[in-house]
């Protein structure tokens, strides 16, 4: 059995088309079998609604009088990119406001624009003979500008990882707030509703495919950046007219201590041209796998703890190292469903037709890492020998060591070399002033540490964040293997 795009579009026209969502398709195939489902069902709709950092919009304001050629411009204090003709710009969703910083960014500007709010435009120029205006400060709404085109170079990740944190402090990431010691888990992606998981071989999803984008319609214009279909991390490059979109499906967000982004609603209709597509669109959460990744290790290749299905992720708790860990999503299942349902309705009502891709997308690309010409340095390359005293020694011994070794930080261990604390020259001075004699009264027990394989930049950031100037280097058994101080970092 095969169908053509034309046949399906004829059915949409005559109102006979049978459309179901990817969630509904699972049951249909289970009950009726692939053969019957392929005959009965014409289109399967998908949907996803999550933070998509590679999103933004091209805007054209028209010319002022006298004309200006922007050198720098801001929309509600968020800097827009300008490297095109005089009054074109691109507002990227992760750019944060110069004034409100983490609270408001390019994603919020796009949401405000689509919801009809007035946006303040400020810009300046070095001026030319043809563009003499040096500065402008004005306001505009979406209706008042020429073009507003959502243009997202990387959307609709086929799947995403599940993030956990092994470190000893809370991490604020683009995967949300991750509690220490595997305190919680966050995942993203729409699972069985994810567009690319329903057509993983890119039979129907290609350049020119018409899609649901931000509450309006848009098009796929190519593979997304970092497109990596070989390991199920395919992505899409999409565009659509902001003027017909709906702010319910374009929401600016701020991730604490990470930055801003944009939640984008995206859905793709998949024509059931053959039995193969009927089978693929019936994929369930239990068949979709992703990795649990430790964000506690601040490296590109973060350790993968294990594989997990989306079905397990949908439970409230996941199992990790024999422990129950509370797990929740970063992307909305409610809205993913709503998008698939809306798209279904549009097709049923004859408002949305399908088209054959002009060109298919590559299925063999991989995502290469950045080439770095300077070798990255690790703590083990720059650490020095820690000056150690035992936790039952006298303050005098510590003071002597500080002088003899010209070292500000003395690491305190037990006889087995296990880290017990740290004492600085300032602590000693204070002890003398306050006439204290017991090491227990002056030792700092909660020590911020690092390990051999931490990159130097990670150690430096940790010192800066904690306003300290040295970190003992410890191994996995808390044995002291050195110290790194701010002096080594200069």
């Amino acid at each position, binding site marked *: 059995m095969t169908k053509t795009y034309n046949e399906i579009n004829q059915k949409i026209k005559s109102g006979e088309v049978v459309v179901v969502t990817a969630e509904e398709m699972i049951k249909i195939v289970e009950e009726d079998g692939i053969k019957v489902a392929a005959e009965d069902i014409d289109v399967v709709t998908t949907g996803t609604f999550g933070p998509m950092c590679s999103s933004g919009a091209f805007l054209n304001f028209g010319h002022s009088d006298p004309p200006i050629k922007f050198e720098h411009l801001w929309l509600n204090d968020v800097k827009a990119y300008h490297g095109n003709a005089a009054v074109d710009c691109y507002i990227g969703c992760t750019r944060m406001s110069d004034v409100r910083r983490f609270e408001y960014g390019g994603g919020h500007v796009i949401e405000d624009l689509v919801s009809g709010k007035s946006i303040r435009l400020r810009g300046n120029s070095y001026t030319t003979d043809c563009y003499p205006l040096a500065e402008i400060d004005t306001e505009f709404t979406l209706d008042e500008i020429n073009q507003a085109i959502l243009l997202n170079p990387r959307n609709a990740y086929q799947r995403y990882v599940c993030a956990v944190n092994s470190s000893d402090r809370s991490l604020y990431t683009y995967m949300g707030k991750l*509690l220490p010691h595997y305190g*919680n888990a966050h995942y993203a992606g729409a699972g069985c509703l994810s567009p690319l998981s329903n057509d993983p071989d890119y039979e129907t999803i290609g350049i020119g495919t018409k899609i649901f984008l931000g509450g309006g319609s848009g098009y796929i214009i190519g593979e997304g950046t970092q497109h990596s279909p070989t390991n199920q991390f395919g992505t899409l490059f999409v565009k659509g007219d902001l003027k017909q979109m709906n702010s319910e499906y374009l929401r600016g967000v*701020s991730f604490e201590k990470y930055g801003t982004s944009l939640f984008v609603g995206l859905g793709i209709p998949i024509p059931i041209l053959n039995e193969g597509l009927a089978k693929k669109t019936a994929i369930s959460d239990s068949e979709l796998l992703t990795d649990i990744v430790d964000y506690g290790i601040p490296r590109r290749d973060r350790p993968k703890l294990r594989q997990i299905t989306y079905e397990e992720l949908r439970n*409230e708790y996941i199992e990790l190292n024999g422990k129950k860990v*509370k797990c929740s*999503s970063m992307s909305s299942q409610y809205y993913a*469903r709503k998008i698939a349902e809306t798209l279904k309705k549009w097709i049923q009502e004859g408002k949305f037709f399908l088209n054959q891709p002009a060109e298919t997308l590559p299925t063999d690309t991989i995502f290469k890492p950045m080439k770095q010409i300077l070798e990255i340095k690790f703590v083990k390359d720059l650490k020095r020998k820690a000056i150690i005293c035992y936790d039952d020694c006298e303050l005098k011994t510590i003071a002597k060591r500080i002088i003899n070794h010209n070292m500000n930080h003395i690491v305190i261990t037990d006889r087995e070399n296990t880290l017990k604390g740290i004492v600085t020259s300032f602590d000693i001075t204070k002890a003398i002033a306050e006439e204290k004699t017991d090491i227990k009264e002056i030792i700092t027990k909660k020590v911020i540490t690092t390990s051999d394989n931490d990159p130097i930049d990670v150690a430096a950031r940790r010192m800066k964040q904690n306003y300290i100037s040295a970190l003992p280097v410890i191994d996995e058994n808390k044995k002291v293997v050195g110290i790194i101080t701010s002096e080594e970092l200069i």
Partner: protein
Amino acid sequence: MTVMNITLPFGVIKDISDYSRFINEILKFDITLNILKFSTGTSGINLLIDIPDDKIKSITESLKKNNIIVNKKGRIIIDTEKCIDCGACISLCPTDALNFDSEKRLKFYYERCIGCLLCLDSCPRYAIEEM
């Protein structure tokens, strides 16, 4: 039993004897006391304790008298206009006060909230507000 969230301010608890004084303060109500969680916060030691329902009032009063902070229940509100039902807050909540309803929309169960405020900075929409 009811979970209560209390903070022992750093100034109030200086050593172990202060700590046992405070525990005795609760034990004098002749109850079994479960300490569910013990953590050090920015302003003091946070304790999640499990106490019998009928003793809430008297224990609260006695703790307050000893300068111990009893955090209110239901200390947050969700602005449903701003909420996008992403779920990013759910995994932070130790008591399942934040959870999805059957439609997968965020639901806040006021009576389960112990006011720990762990969820507060997890919401990318600033939809969670402290009361």
